């Protein structure tokens, strides 16, 4: 057919045809992935607890209050703290200044601490919040507090040392730094992978929230798996059922796969770092566990739950008296429960605890059967929408030769989008499918603009819906003083360009209005926004220029 030959000489039409074919190939090769709400599974929305804050406080004052000192002075890189009378030798260590020099002369004690002012502030916050504190940023120096604090609670905490959080909105920000979010995401990622779960997606939203999709898992199980930071702690019993902290999980250097014994008991062997082993030895000796193991149980906790508590074995107690011991084992129980617990401990020891506590702010689940049903319903909706739109177009133009290219173009825009989704590996969720239907509805609009602009049929078209297209085209052509067949003529091109000014304006407004949705709603509507934005772009750049040519030829033929 000469029409087709003519058309394929046009670059726009060739690009369009190539894009559609490419999209079909991409869909066939990569396949489409569906979102959780269509495939079934559960999702969790986590907030990381913490704050990034500035602090107004003098380090000398902190030291004075902490040591009960009469005076604290800064000399270069060191602080000298003068305390009346004698000082508990372990106090400096307890406050986090392990290298401090303590000298008692007469009735005063001098403590020399090599530290920067930021270290002193960090130590104070750590000690009083019982949480990790990191220094972030320079001028102004900010502190990332990795626990749940408010501006008020922090001010109350700083009041005894005469400090406060400076007034202003950006001096105290809830949330943690992007790096911490990323680190948490990585730990979560590897922990979940260790559990042998398939198809888990961990995403960061808005730098503050972590979104986890767990395919094929119910929400109760998901919360159990993810909601705990996995903090491992070893404590030792001192006196009267009291215990003292010895080590955290970060002192564990390596861990072996859980092992079951003949009695069905499960244990997780692990190795302490050298420093960790030394700390453990010192604690065991200090507490008296090496001399009287039975009165001083060693306890291991995972997220403050006791998972193990037993006296030191006699031979271990004996050797600990002489040298640090690095190899240890946590016995966690027997049977299936023991096996599960051992596996959980293994994962947490291996991947480390989450840098911050997480709070589940939202969660949910969809069953696979319900998801499949939604899918069918949406395909149904899409088909009805396409038919309804086709009906409207036919009602207006009464001409198959316009209806068919229009509907085909609109449908091919959907194909192109799906092609992108397939190759990018993005998931289609319920909202994206709704987005596709909106793209069909709005995409045809633009084709209507092109058609009307080319035909000049806009005039009184509503009144003359029953007039045949040829009559109107002829009338319009006559009016403009040019034949429609002359598709390269000036009139045709100027009309086409005018149509595209309108289309570009309309497309741009639709796209920019959708931009905020990319960042809103914890990612729930990202698919909807993305599909509309991309649909508008693809339509305007590829499909509609080609449609302009094709319909020009058809009207001219």
């Amino acid at each position: 057919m000469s029409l087709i030959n003519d058309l394929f000489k046009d670059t726009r039409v060739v690009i369009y045809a190539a894009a559609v074919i490419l999209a079909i190939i991409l869909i066939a090769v990569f396949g489409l992935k569906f979102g959780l709400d269509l495939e079934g599974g559960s999702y969790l929305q986590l907030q990381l607890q913490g704050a990034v804050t500035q602090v107004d406080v003098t380090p000398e004052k902190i030291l004075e209050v902490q040591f009960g000192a009469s005076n604290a002075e800064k000399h270069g890189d060191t602080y000298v703290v003068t305390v009346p009378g004698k000082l508990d030798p372990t106090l400096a260590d307890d406050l986090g200044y392990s290298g401090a020099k303590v000298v008692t002369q007469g009735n005063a004690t001098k403590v020399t601490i090599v530290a920067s002012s930021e270290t002193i502030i960090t130590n104070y916050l750590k000690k009083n919040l019982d949480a990790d504190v990191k220094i972030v940023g320079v001028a102004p120096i900010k502190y990332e507090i990795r626990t749940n604090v408010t501006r008020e609670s922090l001010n109350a905490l700083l009041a005894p040392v005469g400090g406060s959080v400076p007034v202003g909105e950006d001096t105290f920000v809830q949330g943690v730094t992007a790096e911490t979010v990323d680190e948490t995401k990585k730990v979560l990622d590897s922990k979940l992978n260790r559990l042998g779960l398939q198809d888990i997606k961990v995403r960061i939203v808005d730098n503050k929230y972590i979104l986890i999709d767990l395919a094929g898992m119910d929400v109760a199980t998901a919360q159990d798996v993810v909601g705990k930071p996995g903090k491992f702690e070893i404590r030792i019993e001192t006196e009267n059922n009291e215990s003292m902290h010895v080590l955290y999980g970060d002192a564990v250097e390596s861990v072996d796969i859980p092992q079951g014994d003949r009695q069905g008991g499960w244990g997780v062997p692990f190795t302490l770092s050298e420093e960790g082993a030394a700390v453990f030895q010192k604690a065991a000796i200090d507490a008296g566990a090496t001399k009287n193991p039975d009165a001083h149980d060693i306890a291991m906790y995972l997220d403050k739950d006791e998972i193990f508590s037993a006296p030191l074995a006699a031979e271990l107690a004996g050797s600990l008296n002489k040298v640090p011991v690095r190899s240890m084992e946590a016995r966690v129980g027997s049977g299936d429960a023991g096996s599960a617990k051992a596996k959980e401990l293994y994962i947490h020891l291996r991947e480390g605890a989450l840098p911050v506590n997480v709070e589940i702010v939202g969660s949910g689940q969809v069953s696979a059967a319900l998801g499949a049903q939604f899918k069918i319903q949406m395909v149904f909706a899409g088909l009805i929408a396409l038919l309804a739109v086709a009906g409207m177009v036919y009602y207006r133009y009464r001409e198959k030769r316009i209806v068919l290219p229009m509907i085909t173009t609109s449908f091919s825009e959907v194909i192109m989008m799906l092609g992108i989704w397939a190759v990018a590996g993005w998931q289609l969720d319920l909202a994206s499918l709704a987005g596709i239907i909106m793209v069909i509805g709005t995409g045809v609009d633009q084709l209507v603009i092109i058609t009307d602009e080319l035909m000049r049929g806009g005039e009184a078209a509503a009144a003359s819906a029953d007039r045949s297209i040829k009559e109107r085209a002829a009338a319009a052509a006559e009016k403009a003083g040019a034949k429609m067949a002359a598709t390269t003529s000036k009139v045709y091109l100027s009309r086409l360009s005018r149509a595209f000014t309108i289309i570009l304006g309309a497309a741009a407004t639709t796209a920019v209005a959708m931009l905020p949705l990319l960042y809103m709603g914890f990612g729930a509507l990202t698919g909807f926004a993305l599909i509309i934005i991309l649909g508008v772009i693809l339509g305007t750049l590829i499909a509609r220029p080609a449609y302009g040519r094709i319909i020009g030829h058809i009207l001219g033929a």
Partner: protein
Amino acid sequence: MELEEIISKYPPKQIMLIPIAIIILAFISLGATYFSTGSPVHLGIEFTGGTLITVPATGTEDAAKAQFAQYPLVDVRDIGNRYMIQFGPMSDSEYAALAKQVNAEYDGAEIRHMGPIYSKELQAQVMRYLPISFLLMALVVFIVFRQPMVSLLVVVSALADILTAAASMNITGVQLSLGTVAALLMLIGYSVDTDILLSMRVLKRKGSVDEKIIGAMGTGLMMSGTTIAAVIALIIVSNFLYLIIPSFTRMDVIADMSTVLIFGLAADIFNTWVTNAQGLRWYFSRSSKAVRGQKK
């Protein structure tokens, strides 16, 4: 013919009283809701926090109510072979217990849980992003036309569309959810399409303003028609089909979204061809006199 009469029979200033009255009515509706609830539209569960579950309808509604009586139950609704059960805010441990119970007792339960942090953050996001979206749209309109008055008319028409759509939510009892927010954003971007078409035609084509408006109307009504057709398809499938086809379920998000869209699109037809068109008639009748005076 009728349409032409509406466009050109009455002086613009007189006709403009209708949209102004509608905008005032919309404001009254939003204001009244604001004073009774603290926000201009009724907030859905995503913004107030709470838990929503849907389970296969195996027993009666009362049986379902009794089953979950120990939780802060708000409402049980039949949504076509499933019950939708809504709960108020509850503690994390209560929620964990509820999730376990639901999964133990039902196959294929759907659960959505929105904690207080989630809903607060969502409220803040809407307050932040809805205006941003509108401003971005307005910016594009001003760039496209580079004529303050014409651009302003387009933006005002869009604002009227959004206000009408929001007010219609109060009248029809649709609550603000993520879906309806998406619909409002969609309206912000889409409702100006016909306004752009109209203004472009009036600016770029030759002929009398009234003729150009009527010409644009044919195309514009068709544009709205196709979109409304697509939205009606969504309404039917999400909202009514379950009444006919027993295996289908009501799709809440889509249903809310399409309800807001249909009101917004209806408002858009009115605001484009009355508010914006009459605004253009008024502006060009004034400026053509002024321009003729200035130009040689």
